[in-house]
């Protein structure tokens, strides 16, 4: 009995080997693998694996009020008002085809060291249409200091700075009655690309909707 079993198994293997030899020139192991992969993809599709993901909404960003301080790491930001105008000399000169759309903020840095103005820019976006672009991306806004209309190049720890965020909007688009500003907190972390430490990963923490007023006389 013990000798008979291996003989039976060997003969069955031999049978299948002969059968496979008939098609082995067409069904090579590589092609069999490929067919298996295609079959797997087909089965995945039959069970809905290729349908668009539904029912997973982006997390709701809470609404904040105008004049309400919001913790937006590493800053505390209070949105004051939104305005539009064509020029505000000597800081902002008229540009053909564009108007200025600005949002006034109070910004206080809670960081222990100065934060560069460049690092503030990812903290705020606006939902207006027709904003000036660089390539296919919206151009980063310009930051001015409300107190003297000079460029806001850094935010000092604990010093509340009146700040004006300036976008340029195509004047072919209508002036929005209101805009929604999204404030995004950032994380101080080491870059995986170059090992440098910087504020990264802006994540929305609050939205503020406010009317856009005309600035008639500077």
């Amino acid at each position: 009995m013990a000798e008979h079993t291996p003989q039976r198994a060997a003969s069955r293997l031999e049978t299948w080997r002969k059968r496979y030899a008939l098609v082995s020139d067409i069904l090579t192991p590589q092609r069999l693998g490929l067919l298996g992969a295609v079959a797997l993809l087909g089965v995945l599709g039959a069970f809905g694996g290729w349908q668009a993901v539904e029912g997973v909404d982006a997390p709701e960003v809470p609404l904040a009020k105008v004049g309400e301080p919001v913790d937006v790491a590493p800053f505390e930001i209070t949105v004051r008002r939104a305005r539009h105008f064509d020029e505000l000399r000597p800081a902002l000169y008229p540009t053909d085809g564009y108007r200025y759309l600005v949002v006034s903020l109070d910004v206080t840095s809670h960081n222990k060291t100065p934060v560069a103005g460049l690092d503030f820019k990812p903290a705020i976006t606006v939902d207006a249409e027709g904003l000036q672009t660089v390539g296919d991306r919206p151009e980063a806004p310009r930051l001015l200091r409300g107190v003297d209309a000079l460029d806001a190049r850094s935010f000092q720890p604990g010093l509340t700075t009146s700040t004006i965020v300036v976008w340029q909007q195509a004047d072919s688009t209508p002036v929005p009655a209101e805009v929604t500003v999204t404030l995004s907190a950032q994380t101080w972390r080491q870059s995986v690309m170059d090992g440098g430490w910087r504020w990264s990963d802006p994540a929305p923490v609050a939205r503020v909707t406010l009317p856009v007023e005309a600035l008639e006389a500077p």
Partner: protein
Amino acid sequence: MRFTRDGLLTAILVVAALFVGSTLTQYLPKPDDFRDDPFPVAGAFGEPVRLRNADITVTKVQAARTVELFGQVAATDGVWLVLDVTYAPRHEPGVLVGSQPLLSAPDGRRFGGLQAITNNCGPANPGLPVACQLPIEVPADALEGLVLTIPAENGQWENDEVTEIDLGITAERAAELRASEAQVTLQEPTVVRP
């Protein structure tokens, strides 16, 4: 190979010694903990501080409501602290870039970097010190006890010399500075006699 009681005891002692040694090593200071630390060079207001490549002297500290340079006027929601500094490179020409000085407050905050108006010290040549005025914007509550730190090499805050100059701002002096309504027109860097 035969296990003996002495052999077993020796093995246990070796393992125990390795365990104790590795545990102790975790608590010992490591070179990495200090490798990036700056080398502070302490100094006093009014006296030259000798860095490896230049002497730096703070000769005056004043506060301003506005500072002006080349027709641009910068106001503030805090206080403009204007530092009169003499910068004297020793061996090679150099420049003290205005965004380099940082003011350290006792609570750990540091002020400086790129300002709305930035003035530079230099370029200066050895033997020809340059006097300049550096404005730094600070909150009104942070004046007392400020210490001026300037790196020997611009941008090099690690593993190199950095001044630690106590500006000598007491509570009374801080109150005076806070109350200042001065409007300071910044002087352009000028060569001074050594």
